[in-house]
């Protein structure tokens, strides 16, 4: 078996994975920011009187909003020094971005569903 062929195949597979993950990563991050900002706004500004703004929940919302973009930034910086190809770096950035933002997005969906049921 030709070892070069195997390496080429792995590279192709990684490129394919990076391309497939890109829209998922994009959607998760985008949804995380949209949901997070809406939630933070709702607890800090859009509360219904006579309620009061909830600072603790506001901080939680802000943290949840920036968690994904922060993970992406950190992954970008951490992979910079290593001898990784562009595809591998993109894969790691996509992976960390999706892994961190996915639970936030899911939690947001649960909140939305709960609010609509109540």
């Amino acid at each position, binding site marked *: 078996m030709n070892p070069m062929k195997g390496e080429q195949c792995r590279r192709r597979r990684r490129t394919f994975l990076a391309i497939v993950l890109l829209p998922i990563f*994009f959607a998760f*991050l*985008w949804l995380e*920011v*949209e949901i*997070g*900002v*809406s939630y933070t*706004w*709702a607890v800090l*500004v*859009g509360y219904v*009187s*006579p309620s009061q703004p909830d600072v603790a929940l506001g901080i939680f919302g802000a943290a949840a*909003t920036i968690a994904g*973009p922060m993970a*992406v*930034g950190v992954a*970008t910086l951490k*992979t*910079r*020094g*290593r*001898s990784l190809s*562009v595809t591998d*770096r*993109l894969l790691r*950035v996509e992976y960390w971005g999706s892994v961190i933002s996915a639970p936030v997005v899911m939690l947001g969906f649960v909140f939305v569903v709960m609010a609509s049921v109540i």
Partner: protein
Amino acid sequence: MTIDTQWLHQKRVQSRALDSKSWIGRWLVEMLVGLFIVFLMWQGLSVWLEMTTEITHFPEALDSIGPRPQGGFKVDTAQHLNRVQPGRSFIDNEVRYVGKDAQSTGPFVVSINPIAPNTFSVAALGDNGRCYAELMHTYGPGEEYGWTKYAKFALGVTCSGSVATLATVTARDEPQ
């Protein structure tokens, strides 16, 4: 004398690997991530501004009076409304109704002004500190027709039912 430690060696390998890449190869990921983060910041800011502009400060308690009673709006006294709480089911909060000369001190304190049997106005202080008013008027043989008008007064206006008259409450749409 040579110092050949593991970390020094690794650093050399890494920097060599970086040097061997083209300018695009070295900065492509940073550029993509940077652009994406700028896009996300713009989206977040847009959502925040959009929600801030679209929020309504109109006190929902102003809509709590309901339709004209059989005996005309004069029946709707503060005592009667405080007892009946007509909007309780959809406001989900108790509303305190006060006379036309008493000031509203918040979104759930409504100053009522029964101007005539077929004309009734209410005023309440919004959570933005502005005074909002609503005026209902009915007409026709059986008082079956009617219209509602709205007002948002300037800051500092005494927020009582007496300022909500046919002359001052003129807007067709509910102000925000």
